[in-house]
C-alpha cells in the first residue's frame, strides 16, 4: 500500500476479533494527544466522533463499521488484505455521514486502534498503533534539472572534431600560402594526363643552312 498526503493503509483486522461474531468493528483515528482522553464508550456517529468535525474540535473520530463477515479468517487467496483510511471522498463534507472514512486533513501524526462494539458496549479493542505520519508532497520546482554535466562522449566528440577542423584549416592555409612554391610537392610532381603537348622546336642549324649555301 501507499501512503499519500491524505490517506494511509492498514492491515485489515482479520483473525483478531474471532470471538466476537456479533460485534461491529470500528476504527478509531485519533491525533497523538487525544489517545489518553479517548473514551471507549463514546458512540460512533455522534457529533463527538464525527469525521466532519475532525481535527477541530473533534480530536478522534470513528469510522469503518464493519463486521466479522467482512474479514473472513483465514484470508482467502486473491482477497485484498489491506484497508485504506481516507478513501471515501464523496462523504467528506456530508454532515449526515459522521462515520465517513474521509481523507485526512493533515500530515499527522495519527494513531489508530480497532474497537469492537456490541450494541454500544465495547467488548474488545486493539492497542493504539505507533504514530503514523503522512507524506508531505514537495513542489516540482524543487527538482534540480541543472548541473547534469557533460558526458565523456560529448567532450570527446567536441575535442576531437575541433582538433581535426583546426588541422584541416591549417592545411588549407599551407596550401594557399605555398601555392607557387615547389618545396612541398616538387618531388612528386606529375603531369596532367591529357594536356601533354609536343611543341615544335626549331633548331638553329635548320635556319643556318640556307645562309651557309650562300
Amino acid at each position, binding site marked *: *500500500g*501507499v*501512503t*499519500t*498526503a*491524505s*490517506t494511509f*493503509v492498514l492491515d485489515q483486522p482479520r483473525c483478531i476479533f474471532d470471538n466476537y461474531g456479533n460485534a461491529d468493528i470500528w476504527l478509531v483515528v485519533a491525533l497523538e494527544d487525544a489517545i489518553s482522553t479517548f473514551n471507549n464508550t463514546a458512540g460512533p456517529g455522534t457529533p463527538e466522533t464525527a469525521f466532519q468535525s475532525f481535527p477541530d474540535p473533534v480530536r478522534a473520530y470513528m469510522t469503518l463499521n464493519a463486521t466479522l463477515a467482512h474479514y473472513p479468517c483465514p484470508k482467502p487467496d486473491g482477497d*485484498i488484505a*489491506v484497508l*485504506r483510511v*481516507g*478513501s*471515501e*471522498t464523496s462523504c467528506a463534507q456530508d454532515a449526515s455521514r459522521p462515520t465517513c472514512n*474521509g*481523507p485526512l486533513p493533515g500530515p499527522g501524526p495519527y494513531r489508530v486502534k480497532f474497537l469492537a462494539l456490541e450494541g454500544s458496549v465495547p467488548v474488545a479493542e486493539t492497542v493504539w498503533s505507533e504514530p503514523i505520519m503522512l*507524506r508531505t*508532497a*514537495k*513542489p*516540482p*520546482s*524543487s*527538482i*534540480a*534539472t541543472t548541473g*547534469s*554535466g*557533460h*558526458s565523456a*562522449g*560529448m567532450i570527446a*566528440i*567536441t575535442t*576531437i*572534431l*575541433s582538433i*581535426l*577542423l583546426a*588541422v*584541416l*584549416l591549417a*592545411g*588549407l592555409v*599551407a*596550401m594557399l600560402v*605555398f601555392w607557387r612554391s615547389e618545396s*612541398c*610537392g616538387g*618531388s*612528386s*610532381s*606529375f*603531369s*596532367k*594526363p591529357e594536356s601533354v603537348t609536343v611543341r615544335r622546336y626549331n633548331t638553329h642549324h635548320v635556319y643556318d643552312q640556307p645562309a651557309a649555301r650562300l
Partner: protein
Amino acid sequence: MAKSDDCIHILQGLLVFGNVVIGMCGIALTAECIYFVSTPQGLYPLLKDTENSDIHAAAWIGIFVGLALFALSILGIIGVIKASRTLLLVYIILMLITFAFEMASCITAATHQDSLTPEFFLKQMLERYQKSDPANSDNEVTKTWDELMLQNHCCGVLSPSDWVEYTSAFRLTHSDADYPWPRTCCVLDAKGLPVNLDGCKLGVSGYYNSNGCYDAISGPVSTHAWGVAWFGFAILCWTFCVLIGTMFYWSGIEY
C-alpha cells in the same frame, strides 16, 4: 618515374575510393536524418516546447549535410581524375564548410542528449500533465503521456510514487484520495476501465503499472541523438583523412 607514377595512381585510386565512401555515407546520413525527422515517434511533443528541440535541428542540418557530401564527393572524384587544381581547391573549401556544419550538428546532438535526464522529464510531467489552467494549453503533453503509459504499461517517470511525492498540476484537480496517480496507470480492461479500481488506488501489484516510463522515453531519444552524433562523427573522421590526402594530391599537381 614509373614508381612515382604508380604512387600517383595509388593516391588517385585511394582518393576516388574515399570520395565514393563519402558519397554513400552522405546518402545514408540523409536517409537516417529524414527517418528521425519524419517518424511519428510520439515523443516529439515532450521535447518540442523546450530548448531541447535542438536535437531536431541537428537532424535537419544532417539532411542537408548529407546531400552536400554526396554532391561534393562527385565533384571530388571528377577533380581527382582530371587533376584540376581549381576544381580540387573548390572541393576542399566547400568540404571544409560542410565539415564545420556537420561538426556543429554532432556537438549539438551530443550536448542535448546529455540534458535529457529523468529529472527533466519528471519536472515536465508534473508541471504539464493535465494542466487545466489555461484550458487545453498542454493537451499534447497530456496525450503523449497517456499513450506512453498505455502502450508501455508504465507510470510516472521513475515510479508511480512520483505522483505521490510531488505536487503537480494533476494534483490540483484530482485529490490524492481518489487519484493517487492517474487512471492510465491502472491496468485497464478492454473497455478502458480499471480492472480493479481499489486495487489500483491501493497500489496492489497486478492492478497498476509499477514501473516508471523513463526507460521507454530514453530509449528512442537516445538512439536518435547518438545516431546523429556518432554516425556524423565517423563520417567526419573519414572525411578528414580524404581531405588531407586531397591536399597532398593538390599540392603535387603541375600547373
